[in-house]
């Protein structure tokens, strides 16, 4: 996938929400879906089990209209977090322009967060992508839970954010931090327009 197509004057950003199971990736998309005006969003495709676990992936296309002569679209994807959906995760990750890593702030989920982050890097490496060059932001979700249940942002940063990428505390269920995260990854991805690493 190309971020910017100069021939057709289109900018298409594929952003993948990655993270362990039940960390709130789909919740992020649901919140965004609820905020985007009807004429700007496409059908949100969500393949979930009866218990609302993502079975394959969620997909939310957003049309941002024509900006500086470029038809600009965002495509938001989530991956299934469960360990056994490895193949689907790789598939969805292909051609991503940016990744939002949604971490579950609950203290008992720290190990799953670390494993999922390692899984992300392994899958990027397998696809020949240098993780250091891939735009990435981290969202620490569920920070609204009682403090005794959650790992602090500093601790999470120490455990997960070894690259020092932008990180955001969030409560995806209610909205705080969701758009800030999306704005953060968008800035990173769009910055590549001028570096041209994705240009065609």
């Amino acid at each position, binding site marked *: 996938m190309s971020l910017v197509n100069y021939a057709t004057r289109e900018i298409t950003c594929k952003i993948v929400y990655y993270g362990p199971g039940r960390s709130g990736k789909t919740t992020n998309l649901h919140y965004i879906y609820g905020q985007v005006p009807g004429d700007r969003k496409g059908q949100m495709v969500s393949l979930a089990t009866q218990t609302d676990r993502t079975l394959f992936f969620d997909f939310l296309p957003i049309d941002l209209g024509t900006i500086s*002569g470029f038809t600009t679209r965002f495509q938001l994807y989530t991956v299934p977090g469960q360990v056994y959906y490895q193949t689907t995760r790789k598939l969805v990750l292909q051609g991503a322009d940016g990744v939002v890593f949604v971490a579950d702030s609950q203290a008992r989920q720290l190990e799953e967060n670390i494993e999922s982050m390692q899984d992300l890097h392994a899958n990027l490496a397998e696809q020949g992508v240098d993780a250091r060059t891939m735009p990435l932001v981290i969202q620490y979700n569920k920070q609204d839970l009682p403090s005794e249940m959650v790992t602090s942002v500093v601790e999470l940063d120490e455990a997960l954010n070894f690259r020092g990428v932008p990180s955001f505390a969030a409560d995806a269920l209610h909205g705080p931090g969701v758009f800030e995260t999306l704005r953060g990854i968008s800035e990173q991805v769009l910055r590549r327009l001028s570096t041209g690493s994705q240009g065609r």
Partner: protein
Amino acid sequence: MVGAGNRLATAAARAVAESPGAVYNPLFIYGGSGLGKTHLLTATAHLLATTDPDAEIVALTLDEFSEQFQAAVSAGEPQAFTGRLAQTDLLLIDDIQFLTGRREMQAELLRHLTRMQEQGRQIVCASDRSPADIADVDERLIQQLAGGLVVDISAPEYEARVAVLRGACTERGVVVPAGALESIARKSVLSVRELLSALNEWIARQTLGGDRTPTGRTPMRGTASVARVTRATPLGITPVSLTPSSVTPAASTPVPGNAPAAPRSGEFLSFLSDVASAVQLHVESWQVRLRETIAYWSAQGYRTGVLERALSLPTDPDVPALVSVYVEAVEHLRALEAAAVSVDRTLAGQSIFRDPEQLEAAEDLVERALAGEMPPGGPTPAFTRESFDEGASNQLAVHAGDAVIASPGTRYNPLFITGGSGLGKTHLVHAIGNAIADASDGRLLVSCVHAQVLVDELIAAIQQGTVERWRSRYRLADVLIVDDVQFLAGKERTQDEFFFVFNSLIEAGKQIILSSDRSVSEIPELAERLRSRFEGGLTAVILPPDRPLREKLVARFLAALGRPSTPELLDVVCDLPVQSVRELIGIVNRLAAAADARGCPLDAALARAELGFGASSSATMAPAAAAEAAGDRTFLDRERVIWDWPDVGARLIEEMR
């Protein structure tokens, strides 16, 4: 908002909307990005629609105009598109600067605009630059666009900026403290878009800081309360800064209840505004403009190396000037190619006409083509004398060739090489040509053509009335090699012309080398005067390769494929009654493919199995070898020889029947 920067443009647009087609036709509005050109176009359309509800108004960007026209053409209904425009009272075209380089679109637009103007239909165009500054556009179209009124829109002055900000706040229902908007308006901004972005930023900062307006209202409807700040929000979320090291931890407090928060519709708009600012910032960089140009010209088939190198420059080059020079070079190349093709159709599409960096070489090529000073092409470099193996079957031809290489034009002139198909005639004549060129350090001009090319070029020259140039080209050669001259059979005019070329070269002491798959006497419908001349030098025959030559060749072909050649393997392959070198190459390739498919080494056992030999190759090959020695060709025909005899039982049953 009307200010000093857009007053003239607004007045002109209003006049146009009030009496379309009567004044300022076309009206051309230009100005930097984000200054409200599109807004003004839309307002013009709106005003006309209000005053005259029956008016036909079409508002398109240039890309949309192009897409709709192409769609109409694809649907086979270009007239429908033309008809629709003919009914239009007001046509508004935005972003018309993207006409650059789109020749077909320019011609189409010129046609439509001319017709609309003749019919008194109003046209309004908007661009980020003046008509004269739009590069690579037909001069007639530029004149057409600039023929009405050209007005610019400049950045809004302070008062207009304050008015824009107040309007935006009113529209969004945002109340700001006194003096805040004036403070934002004092910032140095170049466009309305930047101004609104600054307002958004200010509102976001105020909101994130938890400040409330003096009236107690929420500063902006539904703005997110979490972002990159370093203190706790009312919700108890611990915000995080961009740099993890600067994070200040704060105790999280639970959210009361778990009900979903109320929708905050401003979030998306704020996000959209930020994305628009980011895209605008990056899209308008000089590198992006350069990439756009590269994408366009690459798609047209031109090399863009010079532009690509400019991308890696550390500082902003003068992109418009660079692109302008590039486009001029491309136009020059097009003109050169047209000139070259007018004298020689074979020059069409040559890569030299697609590379602006080879402009001088292209000019030189065309100059020589026009002067008839371009001899036909040289021999293929891949065929070298060193790679041509000598054996008893081709000894005469090789030695004659070596003599010609040693002193071209003096011995064996012409040298006529004949032999069956696939025996290496083409390789040898090209090799002789290359060796002569090398030996003379390029002083001797060696031309090498296939006889069919000779015929085709003459036909083209006759069509274009450039036969004299055709003759001149061939007479320029110091060594002329014509491969497969049997193709001259029955081509009377070519034979006539070639006769004169032949005589001219021989008289001038130039070397001629010919090849044919049959002897001169066997070429039908060949003029007697040519026949005698072809036989006037030396005719050297190449025969099918004998056993030692086959061994040499097979070993060479195996080595080229990176396969070892053992004596046993060479025995198996070279025992085959092969009639041509080409056939031998085919066999070696077949064996290599079989070895790959079976995953085993290419050895004698594989060769026997693949080539259908029995248990003992020597036993089965004996008749062939004997037949070859005896000159009995019957046994050399694989269709007539049974290589794999049935077993004894089957043969007995056959005998007893």
